[in-house]
Every structure is written in structure tokens, then in C-alpha cells.
């Protein structure tokens, strides 16, 4: 087919309706996630000391940071759904900067309680229910978010996949902090943070398989 004929054909078809702005998409996404979190935590039941925990500024800041990580990684995923997602390179860095802030906050308060012995002990407890909860919680919104991102035309599928996964797993982590009365840092590292990192790596690979614009 000659290029001129092709152009005429494309003009006849007309452009597609523009996608909503990434901020708008993230707002809807956040509302949906909060609703889902409410239902899930309602079923699982909040931790017994939740009122007491909410009085702790440290805990509140931790939750705020986690929600912010979830929001920014979702926003980043929605931006990366556009082929020119690289126009906002800083957006991919924000979730990592927030993770560093959160790690600093967590380790500054109870980092001294983490040592090799604690970590080994935590591994020996084999608390697989925690990563399972995170994965189960993250799966439905994860599928939804991947589908939303797929509606675009991402050229950075690894980043888009990892950002989408980071967003849903952040909310998964948030859920666990709301329902599980265990603040042991060694436990959080082994059974919450490490599984989330693994899930995010998996999300990167899924990103290539599902989000690659063909």
C-alpha cells in the first residue's frame, strides 16, 4: 500500500478518544483502592491495638508514606502507559525516594532490633500467610491496573510493570500493617518487604509479557 493511501485510510478512521489525564486516573484508582482496602480489612478484621497505634505519630507517618508510595507508583504507571512517559523521568524516582524515607524512619526507630539472629529466627517461623495475604490482596487490583496500563501504549514496559506492581503491593503492605498486630522489624523485612520486592521483580517480567506495545 502506498503511504498516501494509508494516510487517507487513517484519516478516515479518525483519532481515538483521548485517555483521561494520569492524575485523574490515579484519583479514581486511589478511591477504588481505598474502597477495596476497607472491604478487605473489614473481612480480615483490624488489629486489636489499632486505636493505640493511631495515637503513635511514627505509625501514622509510616502509613502516610506507604499510601504515598502507592499513589506515586500508580501515577508513574499511568504516565508510563503513554509512549512519551520518559518526559517525566523524576516520577519513577519518587517512589524510590519515598521508600528510602520510609526505611530511614523504620530503622531509626527500631533498626537496632534487627540482627542476623532475629532475621534467622524470623525465617524459621515460616509465616507464609503474610506474603500470601499480600499477594492475594494485590492480585485483583493488580490485574485491573495492568489492564488500565495496557490500554495505553507503553514503550517502557519493565518500568510500567514494576510501578504497577509496587502500587498494589504497597496497599497490600498497608493492609497487613492494619490487620496484623506484629511490629517486629525482622518479621516485616523477611515476610513483608522481601516478598514485595520479589513480587515487583515478577511484575517487571509480567510487564514485558503483558504491557509490551505490539
Amino acid at each position, binding site marked *: *500500500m502506498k*503511504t498516501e493511501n*494509508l*494516510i487517507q485510510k*487513517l*484519516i478516515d*478512521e*479518525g*483519532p*481515538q*478518544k*483521548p*485517555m483521561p*489525564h494520569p492524575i485523574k486516573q490515579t484519583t479514581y484508582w486511589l478511591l477504588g483502592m481505598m474502597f477495596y482496602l476497607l472491604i478487605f480489612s473489614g473481612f480480615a478484621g483490624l488489629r486489636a491495638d489499632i486505636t493505640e497505634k493511631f495515637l503513635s505519630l511514627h505509625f501514622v507517618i509510616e502509613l502516610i508514606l506507604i499510601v504515598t508510595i502507592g499513589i506515586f507508583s500508580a501515577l508513574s504507571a499511568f504516565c508510563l*502507559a*503513554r*509512549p*512519551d512517559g*520518559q*518526559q517525566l523521568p523524576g516520577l519513577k524516582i519518587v517512589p524510590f525516594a519515598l521508600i528510602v524515607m520510609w526505611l530511614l524512619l523504620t530503622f531509626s526507630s527500631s533498626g537496632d532490633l534487627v540482627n542476623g539472629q532475629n532475621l534467622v529466627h524470623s525465617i524459621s517461623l515460616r509465616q507464609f500467610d503474610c506474603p500470601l495475604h499480600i499477594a492475594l490482596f494485590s492480585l485483583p487490583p493488580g490485574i485491573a491496573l495492568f489492564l488500565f496500563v495496557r490500554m*495505553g*501504549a507503553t*514503550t517502557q514496559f519493565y518500568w510500567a510493570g514494576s510501578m504497577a506492581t509496587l502500587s498494589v503491593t504497597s496497599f497490600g503492605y498497608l493492609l497487613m500493617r492494619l490487620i496484623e498486630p506484629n511490629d517486629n522489624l525482622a518479621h516485616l523485612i523477611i515476610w513483608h518487604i522481601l516478598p514485595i520486592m520479589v513480587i515487583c521483580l515478577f511484575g517487571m517480567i509480567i510487564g514485558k509479557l503483558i504491557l509490551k*506495545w505490539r
Partner: protein
Amino acid sequence: MPRNFAKDHSLEHLMALAQQGEQQAYAQVFHKITPILRSFVGKKLNRIEDTEDVVQEILISIHQASHTYDSDRPFKVWMFSIARYRLNDYLRTIYGLRKKGIEINFEDESYGILSKENVTKTHEDQEYLNKIMRSLPAKQRKIVTMIKINGYSIQETALAMDMSESAVKVSAHRAYKILAQRALEIKEIEELE
């Protein structure tokens, strides 16, 4: 009633109008970007047919991704992101095939007329060859003659011309491009006649 596009001809404005359903603006977008894309792809690929194929691929992709364009952002950045992505896709396919041992010889396909078997086949061919070879600068003509007619290797040509191998390759590729263009022009003239 069609709008007056004279007010703002920027691609951002035209695409924003197109997204609102202005077909005329959409047509203008395509007519404006096609030469830009041709030049962009032409710099990376040697064969005109390949360039046109990739340009068409990019145009289709731009159409398919038209819903992802945000009119607050520069249009060209968006467009070149798509163009680069599609061009890389194409190059990956070519290199992938080469890795698998499927050699794609651009010159033989496109410039078969220059192969040793063909050049002396008929007097007509010889004349034709001379005609298009005259369109080349002296240095490039010498390189093409040495490689394609006399059968020298790139290494031997480089040595004889006192040039580096890569410079010979680049010069030869540029010459092939000119020859292909000239051959096309001659063909078109002959068809008209």
C-alpha cells in the same frame, strides 16, 4: 463548519483539534509529520523500500496511540518516542534474523544491477549503469567500481584509497543510496515515456 487552521499550525494544536473530532486537523497532522518521519527513518536505514515500510508502521502506531497524546505536552517528543520504538523494533527483527543466520543482503536485493554477473550482461545494461554511475561524486564512483565491478574487498579498497574500512563502508552505502534514488528516477521517467 471547518475551522480556520491558519491561526495555529502547531502540531500540538492540530492534534488537540483532531482529538476533538476535526478530521481536517488530523489530515494536516499526518501530512506534516510524514516527511519528518521519512527523514528520521531515512537516516537510519539504507533501503528506500525499508524506510517507507517503517514510516508506514510508525504512522499506523501513531494512529493507534492517538488516545495517549496529551495536548499539554510537546507533540514531537511523543511522536519521536513512537518512531524510535518502532524503528528499534524493526532493527531488532533484522538483527535477530541475522543472528539466526538468515543473512539479509540489502545491496544484492536493492542494487542487484551492480552485481558482477549483471554489469556486463548486455550493452544496454552497461549503458544504464554508466548513466546512473555518473550521478555519483568521483570518489564514491571509484569505491563502487572497485567493490562491485572489480570485485575488491572492503579491506583492499580501503588500502587502495588510503581510507579506513568504516569510511569506505559509509561512503559505499551513501553511494548505493544515491544510485537507488537515481535508478528510481530513471524508472519513473521511462514509465512516463
